[in-house]
């Protein structure tokens, strides 16, 4: 186990280095000069140069990579070109919106998908199953920004149950903040819940065909008991994979939704930063997201071991 852990840790580190090089080089070729963006149409060349010097834009590629990557290691993400504040602080603030949103959506989709998937699998071939499957087909097919638009139209403009967007901050109280995140979380969660339901169902159906379910039934367990005691946990393994993928998707995929609901999250920050050519912010956020994905996958692998004793020793 420890060996496996270490090996995974080393490969995790290598992935991060590779990712940082890719990100840095990609943004290196992005045309556009942050200094001239900041100073606008009437800026003079000497002013621009003074600003570039201050932003550290005049070094060689290698110098800049080393100073950036070195900074990352020590937790210093640099200073935003446009906001002129430490990037780490900005990301930290935004994370307090994006992370809860992603978690909220993840929890929502899990809460919907697990019961729905199990329910449909247990009633395979019935009208109930067909209904669940039909709804999930729709859920997968619906573009989430369109769904978000429709929800705003109905729930914010017409019914006025929710505000149309914005985020009052956690200081405003937990429930107020959660309420503001509700519509976006639903919009994000819907397609994810649909996918998860389908995976849960098919994984469960596969498991229900396994011999050990027959063994359990021969012991005298009812169908339901066999399902809950033996099938669900076994069916969880593919579901975990999807769940891991989804979390990273939710974290990054919120870009559009954050724009629809004008939430001050990471997604919107990165979007703004790209158009402002605030490259240091973009680099750091992409790096952070990649790190999160790799970390989540790592956690999922570790969770496998928790679910599946066969993986606890070897590999």
């Amino acid at each position, binding site marked *: 186990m420890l060996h496996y852990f270490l090996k995974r840790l080393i490969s995790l580190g290598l992935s991060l280095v590779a990712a940082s090089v*890719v990100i840095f080089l990609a943004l290196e070729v992005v045309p556009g000069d942050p200094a001239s963006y900041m100073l606008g149409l009437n800026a003079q060349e000497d002013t621009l140069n003074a600003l570039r010097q201050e932003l550290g834009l005049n070094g060689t590629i290698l110098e800049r990579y080393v100073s950036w990557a070195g900074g990352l290691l020590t937790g210093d993400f640099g200073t935003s070109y446009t906001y002129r504040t430490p990037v780490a602080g900005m990301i930290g603030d935004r994370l307090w919106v994006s992370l809860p949103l992603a978690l909220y959506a993840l929890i929502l989709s899990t809460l919907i998908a697990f019961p729905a998937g199990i329910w449909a699998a247990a009633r395979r071939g019935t009208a109930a199953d067909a209904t669940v499957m039909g709804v999930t087909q729709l859920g997968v097919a619906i573009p989430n920004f369109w769904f978000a638009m429709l929800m705003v139209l109905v729930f914010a403009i017409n019914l006025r149950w929710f505000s149309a967007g914005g985020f009052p901050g956690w200081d405003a109280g937990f429930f107020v903040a959660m309420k503001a995140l509700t519509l976006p979380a639903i919009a994000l969660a819907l397609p994810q819940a649909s996918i998860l339901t389908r995976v849960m169902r098919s994984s469960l159906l596969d498991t229900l065909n396994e011999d050990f379910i027959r063994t359990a039934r021969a012991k005298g367990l009812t169908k339901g008991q066999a399902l809950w005691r033996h099938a669900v946990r076994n069916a969880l393994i593919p579901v975990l994979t999807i769940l891991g993928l989804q979390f990273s998707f939710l974290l990054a*995929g919120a870009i559009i939704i954050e724009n629809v609901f004008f939430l001050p999250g990471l997604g919107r920050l990165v979007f703004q930063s790209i158009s402002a050519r605030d490259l240091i912010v973009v680099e750091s956020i992409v790096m952070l997201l990649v790190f999160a994905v790799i970390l989540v996958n790592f956690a999922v692998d570790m969770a496998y071991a928790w679910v599946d004793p066969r993986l606890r020793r070897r590999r």
Partner: protein
Amino acid sequence: MSLLLHSRTLLPGLVLTLVFTGAALISLVWVPYDITVLDIASRMKPPSWVHPFGTDQFGRDILSMIMEGARTSIAVALVAVGIGMVIGVPFGLAAAVRKGGLMDEVIMRGNDLVFAFPSLLIAVMITAVFGASALNAIIAIGIFNIPVFARLTRGAALSLWSRDYILAARVAGKGQARISLEHILPNVANLLIVQGTIQFSLGILAEAGLSYVGLGAQPPIASWGRMLADSQTMISLAPHLALFPGLAILLTVLGLNLLGDGLRDALDPKLRRARV
């Protein structure tokens, strides 16, 4: 024909898909109205006999826009899936030749790396470098199809490599590349077709999303995602502007997903046996 009856989802999926590919093909030669001509005076007209889906904020016929938009969506998604397959499948085949070998390790880690990047951000970065266009949308979507197909192919190929008929081919002196082509590829083809339709539908969603944030096809090329983005602020004035492109995306993606599911049922002998 009996394939069609095997699955409850195949037929509706096929019909929906045909409707939209049909619309796209017809738009190559004919659309009800020329969408490059704007008629500000008759803008935002609700659906009527003259304009079955109404007109948009510039007075263009929405039906014609949807037909041409179908072409854009389908072309972008199809080429992106093509890119994914053409690059991903050989990678997957190569990786499966020796599980845990250097090649496998490099390809799979590369895959993980691509997967680790948030896809929309990469699309944003690509368009920041090269500018927004349908071509760049294709590249951005295509890149993320590569690891999907590579993984799928590798997974399926690995299980095939342990089959006795592969051993038989090796006994017949065939090399790894030849075996991959002659034995592995045909046997993963079904899976690839099924995954292909699913990636195709995801590609259509992705194209809509990219166009929605302004990174996809540029005017005067019609695009469903941009139609949605453009009509967003008018949703309470003229809901049909957002309704029809939204429905077009929904139904096309739905159709492709149903088709994919149906094909999976029809082509997977394991499931077919279970049903008989």
